[in-house]
């Protein structure tokens, strides 16, 4: 089984590559990336910059030259970056290029990671969001909305290309010692501001579980979207405590103003949009991943958070 991976040097790539390497069924890994991947025996490296105008042609060439059985499109950001246009190029346009190339090369399988934050934290979310729930995104977050757009592209692609088994894995916030994303950054502070009077339910997934889910997607018979979440839920304050920090409830307007100010200055390490996720719950139901993908999370949210704590100390 030959596999192509974009964005292999990202967090997802780092979680997945070792598993593919260890998987005896995998013959070769074609890495399509701007950065050289870690030297692994199975890896073939092909430099492709997804943000370039000719990325699609390059991808098509690479994929037709060396046909693969599956493509993991992992070239995504894990949090908002200051350069919004670049993020948009990478996520939305890059995905468009990849989808086009995959369609041309008629690959049998495409795996795209996404995030449960695309559901949006809203007051009228049901207690558990199933995969069919609409993706409302987050009105204030370009990052989240880019993800939503990517999901839309992928869904459209899936409908047009039924021969390509397309799996979208919506991950709960990933927590783990090796990750750097808004959630881990949030939890790495000694004191984490929260919204006074609100304590939404959070999910999280341990990085090992996330890697396992990605790997499972390689052979799954199902297609479509899957919520990949850890076991259980925790209130935000509980998550913070588990991560070894202290929640500091702040009145909403004050908090919002402070975050905005920090964001304007450019010093903000926390996206303003995170506020929504501190206000309302967005709990995704991992039932489908379990039944169709065969993914059973091994780690409870608690463990994921405390793994973070261990990594800090």
């Amino acid at each position, binding site marked *: 089984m030959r596999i192509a991976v974009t964005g292999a040097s990202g967090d997802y790539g780092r979680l997945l590559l070792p598993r593919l390497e260890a998987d005896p069924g995998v013959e070769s890994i074609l890495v399509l990336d701007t950065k050289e991947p870690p030297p692994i025996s199975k890896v073939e490296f092909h430099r492709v910059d997804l943000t370039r105008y000719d990325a699609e042609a390059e991808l098509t060439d690479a994929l037709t030259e060396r046909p693969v059985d599956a493509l993991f499109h992992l070239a995504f950001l894990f949090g908002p970056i200051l350069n919004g246009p670049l993020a948009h190029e990478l996520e939305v346009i890059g995905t468009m290029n990849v989808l086009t190339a995959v369609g041309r090369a008629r690959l049998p399988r495409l795996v795209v990671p996404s995030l449960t934050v695309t559901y949006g934290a809203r007051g009228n979310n049901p207690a558990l969001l199933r995969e069919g729930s609409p993706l409302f995104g987050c009105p204030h977050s370009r990052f989240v909305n880019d993800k939503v757009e990517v999901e839309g592209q992928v869904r459209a692609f899936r409908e047009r290309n039924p021969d390509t088994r397309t799996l979208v894995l919506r991950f709960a916030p990933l927590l783990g010692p090796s990750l750097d994303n808004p959630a881990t950054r949030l939890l790495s502070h000694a004191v984490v501001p929260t919204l006074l009077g*609100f304590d939404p339910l959070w999910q999280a997934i341990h990085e090992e579980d996330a890697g396992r889910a990605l790997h499972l997607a390689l052979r799954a018979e199902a297609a479509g979207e899957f919520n990949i979440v850890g076991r259980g839920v925790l209130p935000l*304050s509980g998550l913070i405590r588990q991560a070894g920090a202290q929640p500091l409830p702040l009145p909403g307007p004050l908090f919002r103003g402070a975050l905005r100010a920090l964001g304007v200055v450019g010093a903000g390490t926390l996206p303003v949009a995170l506020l929504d996720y501190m206000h309302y719950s967005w709990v995704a139901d991992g039932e489908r991943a379990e039944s169709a993908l065969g993914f059973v999370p091994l780690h409870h949210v*608690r463990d994921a958070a405390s793994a973070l704590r261990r990594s800090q100390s």
Partner: protein
Amino acid sequence: MTKGVLGNDPFQRGAAPRTGEVKDDAAHPKAAKKSAAAKGAKSAGKAKSARGGASKSGAQAKAPKGGKAAEAKQGPATPKTPAAKVHKFEARSHERGGARHEEDAHASGQHPAGEDVSPLREPSVPGPAAGPRASRPQVLADEVGGSRPQERTVDRALTEAIASEAAETAAKTAVDELFEGRTGPDRDIERVLATELVAEVAESAVRQVLDLGNGDAGEREVATAIATQVAEATAGVAVDEVMDRNAASPEERTLASAEDRPGEARGLDEDEGADEVWTADAWRRDPKDAPPPEELEEVWTADAWRRDPEGMAAPEEPDEDDRVTGVERVEEDGVHISVSIIEGAAPTDVEPEVELPDESHDELPPSRRPLSLVSDPGEAPLPDEAERDARGFGRPEEPAAPSGFAGRAAGMFSLAKEIAGQALASEGLGRAVGAMHGLMEAMRTSLGTGGGSRLDDYGKDAGLVESLQPVLDFLYEQYWRVSVEGVDQVPRGASILVANHSGALPYDGLVMAQALLRERPDLLEARWLVEDQVFHAPMLGTLFNRLGAVRASPENALRLLDEHRPLVVFPEGYQGASKPFAERYRLKRFGRGGFVKLALRTGAPIVPVAIVGAEETSPLLGRIPGGFLGFPSLPLTAPGPLPAKWTIRFGEPLTMEGLAPEAADDLGEVQRLTERTRESIQRMLQALLRERRSVFTG
């Protein structure tokens, strides 16, 4: 020992010795010298004062050495008991030039706590004019008396005699010297008085020392040395005192003495080191015209003053308090030293420190000056006193803690623990504590800091519910005395319990869930749906969610019914909870019949439920616009739940048999079923209201 323990107990806690202060002490000797010099210079103009100053400063210079020697001797003989040690240290500090202040601290420590401290804080006499510093006889008496109870050996008597003799001679010489330059009508009498005074002070000092010590031979020498030194040192002061007394009006003095006594420092004996101070005192006293603003030293002087006269029943001067403060401060230093000494096993180590004490004096004055109420610069600021006192007292005692006091404290502590244990063991108290804990948890949860790690998918926190159970039990059983009727009619498996919503704060869902939990343990845990306005209300919504409320939405309801849970719904929604008190128990429109559609789709039976009592528990008295919090309005209600009696009556279930799930799309059918449910509930409500004779007793 008893003295120390009893008197000082209250302060003991704060008494950790601080290393930093030792340093201060080290600085003392220089300061002492300086001050002496300053005094001398000032006094130059006046014959009297000049003399007194000179002699005193001379005495001072000597004093430190003598003190040292004494200490050195005493050191090895230090008694084992901590209290005794403390005393000794005090004694030592007296011997030292700079250490006089200690006495005050010490003295106050010996007294029952409140007594000394409070009087010191208030300046009994504001007047700077009070010129002469009164002496406090009672102080001495106290101190001496305190040590009395301890056994005296013959040795001790001997020592005392020797010491007193030495003191007397010393006093005589000193006084004579002082009086030489003075002329006055009663000079002879004065001289005698002064001598007596001095001798007495010296003697008391000796006694004090002896009290502390074991009475061995070394001590004798020490005692003698002390006596002499004290006598010398005191002489000037005593003379001044005597003179002043003549000048001061008798009434004033008596008054002052009366006032001062309790608050006074009684550390007569310690005065040893007081030479300079006294000098300063003397200074101030005699020439009212030009009291050299020597600050601290004066203050101390004042102290010394107070102290020495102990022996004499003579009238005191007013307004000592301020000075006392200063004195006490000094004491701290002295005390401090003593502590360090105690800690350092070898007396030799101690000595260097001992000599130093005076410096602190110098340092103190500037800070004090602004505070003092009295014009006299030497007086100490009252406000600080409490602190200082505490510190001063505490410190000397500290070392004592391990044995006598600590033992007792440990005993008390264990007793207290036992009592607490017993109390906790009693069921009621235990429950109360548990309830408090639960409430705290609830508070934290609602603020959003609760944490909690045992949440289910809907957000119910089993841990919180558990810790809040005592409160819920109390509310359910004793406060609201919920009576439940017809609960057997609730079918097993999924069912929709439709109830009237009532009260400004929706306790009813919680109570329903509790009622089902208690009366029908065979059913799965019930959940209740709450409208968005409550669910997303800050704090309240969070808390309710953790207690088991679920946001009212078809998805959630379906999921809960799929789990075969009884589901409590309030179709009136927010309107039901926000109807004015006048419209209580009158059902509002039942939403859009969502619960009927649910029932039709899932086949779950509808059980009408009437709840009476919730309206009176939190009557809606008015509304506050609450848009800024995301509420349509904030209910104005009783500050807490009122103890109305609750009755919950379950009606006969409406089964969905014979009705196809498609009927859910038939609005007419839905409407019909909705109306039936509504009528059923209204009927039960009216019946319950008719049966109810009193809101609060049922």
